[in-house]
């Protein structure tokens, strides 16, 4: 466990040493601000209900299409390209330590981002503005859902980073996969039957929806966790497979 933390710490530092962390956190905050204040029909201040529901329309999309692919693209791909992976893996660490360390760091960075976004509900409903009494229940459910979605998406990203040695390729495939998992939920409205059931089961959007309404859906928790675990297992296998190539 110590080694996982050592690797995660190094990785997290490297995020903040490069532009990645600032682009991710700053960019998302900016996007969120624009979304909040400028893209609201009738203007933000017309809002009649004390809610941050809009935030949970924005976050899953931004995470899937930009943030999660950006955060995981380098994790393993870049280390393979530059050869640093060889030095890391020939230290007395297990392949699982490496995967978990990288995953934890990515999750940590997204955690920082999510904490930063808390500024919006606090600024609007607590200080300096008081737009009404905010119901914190849905806020926390929304954050939980977002974190779970991120956990699953980061797993997928790490898996692509493990099979590729180009960060651009890893970014592209992660973004496409996550966007697909997201929008596929919209298809459900067009078709019916068992296919639709399966689709709505795997769709991030459908799975996320209850959280945005303030409900903690246990099946969704299990689903996101399963995606994360399977992806990490895949990444682990792929890292291990270097030995036999």
């Amino acid at each position, binding site marked *: 466990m110590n*080694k996982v933390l*050592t690797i995660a710490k*190094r990785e997290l530092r*490297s995020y903040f040493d490069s532009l990645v962390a600032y682009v991710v956190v700053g960019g998302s905050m900016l996007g969120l601000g624009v979304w909040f204040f400028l893209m609201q029909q009738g203007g933000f201040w017309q809002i009649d209900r004390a809610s941050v529901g809009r935030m949970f329309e924005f976050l899953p999309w931004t995470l899937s299409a930009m943030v999660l692919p950006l955060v995981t693209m380098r994790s393993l791909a870049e280390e393979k390209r530059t050869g640093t992976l060889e*030095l890391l893996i*020939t230290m007395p660490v297990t392949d699982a330590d490496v995967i978990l360390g990288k995953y934890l760091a990515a999750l940590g960075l997204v955690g920082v981002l999510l904490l930063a976004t808390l500024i919006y509900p606090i600024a609007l409903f607590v200080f300096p503005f008081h737009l009404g009494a905010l119901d914190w229940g849905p806020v926390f459910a929304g954050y939980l859902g977002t974190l779970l979605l991120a956990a699953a998406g980061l797993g997928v990203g790490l898996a692509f980073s493990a099979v590729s040695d180009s960060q651009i390729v890893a970014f592209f495939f992660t973004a496409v996969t996550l966007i697909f998992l997201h929008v596929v939920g919209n298809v459900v409205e067009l078709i019916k039957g068992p296919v639709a059931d399966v689709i709505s089961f795997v769709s991030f959007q459908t799975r996320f929806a209850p959280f945005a309404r303030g409900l903690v859906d246990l099946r969704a928790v299990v689903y996101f966790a399963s995606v994360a675990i399977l992806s990490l297992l895949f990444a682990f296998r792929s890292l291990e497979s270097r030995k036999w190539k």
Partner: protein
Amino acid sequence: MSSDVMIQTQDLSKSYGSFKAVDRISFEVRRGEIVGFLGPNGAGKSTTMRILTCYLAATGGTAKVNGKDVFEDSLGVRQSLGYLPQRAPLYLDMGVLEYLRFAADLRDIDASTFKKRARSVVEVCGLAQVLGKEISELSHGYRQRVGLAQALIHDPPILILDEPTSDLDPNEKAEFLEYLKRIGQERTVLLSTHNLNEVEAACARAIIVSRGRVVADGPLADIRAKSGAVRTTLTVSAQGLTGASVSEAEVTSAIAAIAGVSKVDSLPSEGSYRLDLASPQDVDLRADLFRLAVQKGWLLLELAREAQALEDVFRDLTLGDERKNRDLTAA
């Protein structure tokens, strides 16, 4: 088997697809030895080292490091190893001290031990000036030193270094070999290179590989002798003992007539004739040459006998590789 064997491979093989990069390599390295792992590019040196350091799995044979099997006790093997991969792939965005600290953390070295070890490693590798710098700012020579420092941070009994000097300039190279000699005093070192001078400077023993196979293994003197030829170099002044001038043709033909001389090459020199003679290993030409000089009244300025240069042996042993590279029909 003696516990003094620190690295041992037995019929070690590695194929990439159908290509055999390492083909049944067997060797042993004992405690305290500095062994040169020598071969042209593509001979399979890095592949062998990657198996020994548990980065790759062998497709056949076994390898043991410090008595532990690389496959069965991979963590144990890696604990007793310091490894510097080819081209020292370090995290460029880290500071030097920070990197050493990271390596120490991954090796479960506590803070006080780290302090002690870091001091000694910084001294041995000459890093005091750059400790606070980011690795990306360092020259290649310094990166190589940082790579060596991380390999030494846990005071391992065994060091595996993959072409540590290949990208260094001659000064850096000489310095690096100097460090290596100090480090190697109480350690087992396996050092790969395609440069013979390095082996001659730092190692007492060499293992020469070519196309995935061991083609020679032993003390340098034995490897030199393996070619079965010795060189005798002599220099005769253009002025004889009595002051009369001596012609080169005269010298060359008289020497070529001595029994046992298989080849006479003339080397450039001024005011004298410098000749390089080849002869079978069991023949010592020096007595005959001296007698000849006395008899002819030549002034002998130099007379030396040495085994064939390691360079020549190496070329003979590994020539196939180069031929294959140039031969289109073989492909």
